[in-house]
């Protein structure tokens, strides 16, 4: 039985096809999900892809958070379904309160696009078991509003509970507090990060294949859960 991983397309999503391709290359069955459809079509996990959902009007991810599909995703995420939010997807997860904090305008105001080295700080989440703690991976990063902020109490709690999943190595690209690139919820099934692992799954089109581990991790997590 193949494992089905859904990828939501919102109006303005850009990286949904890349995420679907990453799922296929990792050995899963990619399933396209539509923002207006509440039904998740029996998927085992969901990826919220990068892009500019609903034009990023109001705030990045603020309108997508109230889409029909997100009603079901939020409910299922709370029940333990693995959910990965990449870039705009990370913003949607924060706006949904599935993850704490918020993403703000890059401190230098410029849109940034480059290959970014990250350190894996937690290799036990649903999306990171194929990495090892402390491992450094390089994946593309492209965002204008990628500065992670939260109050110090939330930041301290994230650190203490091992919920900082990825940190930027070298120059902090956007002014994120404590160099945070990605975090998880308490249960570890919901992970959000600004850089793009789905763009680093083939040497033809990416700087590395370091991103593939996200998708193979989720597939193994789901098989183990059966």
């Amino acid at each position, binding site marked *: 039985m193949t494992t089905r991983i859904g990828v939501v397309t919102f109006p303005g999503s850009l990286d949904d096809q890349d995420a679907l391709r990453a799922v296929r290359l990792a050995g899963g069955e990619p399933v396209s999900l539509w923002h207006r459809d509440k039904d998740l079509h029996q998927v085992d996990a969901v990826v919220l892809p990068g892009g500019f959902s609903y034009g990023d009007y109001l*705030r990045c991810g603020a309108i997508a958070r109230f889409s029909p599909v997100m009603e079901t995703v939020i409910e299922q995420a709370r029940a333990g379904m693995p959910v990965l939010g990449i870039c705009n997807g990370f913003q949607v997860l924060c706006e949904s309160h599935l993850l704490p904090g918020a993403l703000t305008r890059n401190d*230098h105001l410029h849109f940034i696009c480059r290959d970014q080295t990250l350190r894996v700080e937690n290799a036990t989440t649903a999306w990171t078991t194929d990495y090892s703690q402390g491992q450094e991976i390089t994946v593309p990063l492209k965002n204008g509003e990628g500065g992670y902020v939260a109050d110090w109490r939330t930041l301290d709690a994230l650190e203490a509970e091992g919920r900082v999943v990825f940190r930027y190595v070298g120059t902090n690209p956007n002014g994120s507090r404590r160099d945070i690139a990605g975090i998880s919820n308490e249960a570890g099934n919901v992970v959000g990060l600004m850089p793009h692992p789905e763009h680093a799954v083939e040497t033809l089109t990416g700087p590395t294949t370091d991103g593939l581990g996200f998708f193979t991790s989720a597939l193994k997590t789901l098989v183990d859960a059966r």
Partner: protein
Amino acid sequence: MARVVVDVMLKPEILDPQGQAVQRALPRLGFEGIADVRQGKRFELEVEGPVDDAALARVHELAEKFLANTVIEDFTVRIEETEQTEEAAAA
């Protein structure tokens, strides 16, 4: 119809790089003496029916749930006196 204005501002402790960029441009344009600039958002809501306490409470709820992200932003809600409402009040 009455107008209710919702102003949304980044909390004081949140860095506002847009405001800083504006502030830094001011001396170049010949405007001296502006120590700080912060940039926010203003929403003008045209509300049907009377703006009583219940209507204001609903605007407050929508501002808190949707217009502002209270993790990083503060907001205020106020009724704006427009000519139209003044006329209506006079009539």
